[in-house]
């Protein structure tokens, strides 16, 4: 854990490491080789490659980093982690950057607001039912944020999945939902509500 010893405000690097609860600690050993950026399946669509993001973190370019679309294009495929010559936990750093961007309210500036909305809708279901719910997720997410897509979804692929018996109509719910809610409530106090 990197703790700031002086009175100065923590640097972005220190914040990111803290946000990963230690998993991102060796980010400062990045040798800028670009293995991550070369390996990334969605690297083409990122406005900065992961390598650039790490250089920007070291230079404390807070706004540029947290408004970047890079973490939102991470598909968590772990190629970069498996190949990184410095054993940096890149995927976990990307998750941490997503959380920091949401916290700072920055992600909307990136014009890439679909990802957090999708994640939040997903989690809504999980927190209230203990299970995810594909039909509900798709319809609520699309209706709330992208009504036109919802129409596409309902008439096209969604319909096909439904007729194949691959979609639930009623959200499933676990028995111990109260227990889960209590646990998650406590964990948010400990982890800090995003």
């Amino acid at each position: 854990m990197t703790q700031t010893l002086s009175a100065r405000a923590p640097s972005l690097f220190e914040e990111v490491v803290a946000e990963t609860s230690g998993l991102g600690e060796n980010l400062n050993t990045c040798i800028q080789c670009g293995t991550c950026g070369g390996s990334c399946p969605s690297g083409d669509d990122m406005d900065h490659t992961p390598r650039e993001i790490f250089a920007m973190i070291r230079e404390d370019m807070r706004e540029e980093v947290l408004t970047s679309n890079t973490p939102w294009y991470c598909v968590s495929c772990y190629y970069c982690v498996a190949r990184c010559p410095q054993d940096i936990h890149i995927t976990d750093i990307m998750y941490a950057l997503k959380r920091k961007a949401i916290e700072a309210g920055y992600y909307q500036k990136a014009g890439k607001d679909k990802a957090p909305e999708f994640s939040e809708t997903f989690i809504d279901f999980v927190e209230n039912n203990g299970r995810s719910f594909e039909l509900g997720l798709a319809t609520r997410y699309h209706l709330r944020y992208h009504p036109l897509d919802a129409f596409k979804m309902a008439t096209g692929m969604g319909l096909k999945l439904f007729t194949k018996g691959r979609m639930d109509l009623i959200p499933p719910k676990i028995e111990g939902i109260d227990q889960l809610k209590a646990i998650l409530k406590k964990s948010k106090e400990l982890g800090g509500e995003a």
Partner: protein
Amino acid sequence: MKFGYYPGCSIDRNARSYHISMMAIAERLGLEFEEMEDWNCCGATEYFAINDIPAYTLVSRNLALASQQYSGEKLVAPCSACFLNLKKTDHVMGEYKEINQKVNTALEAGGLAYQPGTVSVHHLLEVIVKDVGLEAIEEQVKKPLYELRIAPYYGCMVPRPADMESFDDPEHPTSMDKLLESLGAIVVDFPLKAQCCGGHMTQISEETALELLRRLLKNADDYGADMISTLCPMCQLNLDAYQGAVNAHFGTDYNIPVIYFTQLIGLAFGIPENELGFGKEIVSAKPALEKISDEAPQEKKRRRRPGRRTGLPMPSMPEEG
């Protein structure tokens, strides 16, 4: 052999054929999968994007329940994301004290506790190839999948469970290849076998997702695969349900069914298609299944695209020699 079973949300509905076929072959192989009681969602890749301690906590409730409900049996997850989240949470809790402490404090609010290292998490493919073994599989094969050309697709999280050790090579896995070969099928070379399907990108940036899917479909098609064999509900959904969208977007004409490896094992065991969940796929497997021949192919299985006769010796590959 008895195992704990964590089905995951997809299995209940979207990936029902995975569950059905898994149970059907379990019977033949003498495997018992005891479903965990009152398990909850693993949070997929979504919860970690929002809040990490609750994300670990959500997963750890399952680990805590598993440690109560089972007495040392391995916990099996058929879904890649569930497998990764369960295994990773156990690993991270063991490695990072601060996370372990916070997660257990949260679990306490629900009267639970979890000691990292107690539950041993495994993916279904690992159990089939390691615990059951190919010999036992071969013994059960009644109707070999002769002449069926299959592209074995592993996706990302099973061969590369974050920074943890994998049971197969993270870049070039071969366990499913060998499994399918033992069923009599022709396993085509599939260089993209461990590439990502895009995961939730279909919901976030369809353009990005469709390109990733196109590459996979193109590569399987280049090698003349009749079908893609998968081990993950997310990969199956993306490749199967979005295949039409890929064709519409790129003007292509792919028609490659995406089938769970457990369905193929069941088929080779002689279990009827309707007891294995066939028919639930959007790109129908019917035309591919009709290619299965009763007779073993004459020439030796060819793995690679036909190349020129080489003038200089190729380096030997010890594992394949």
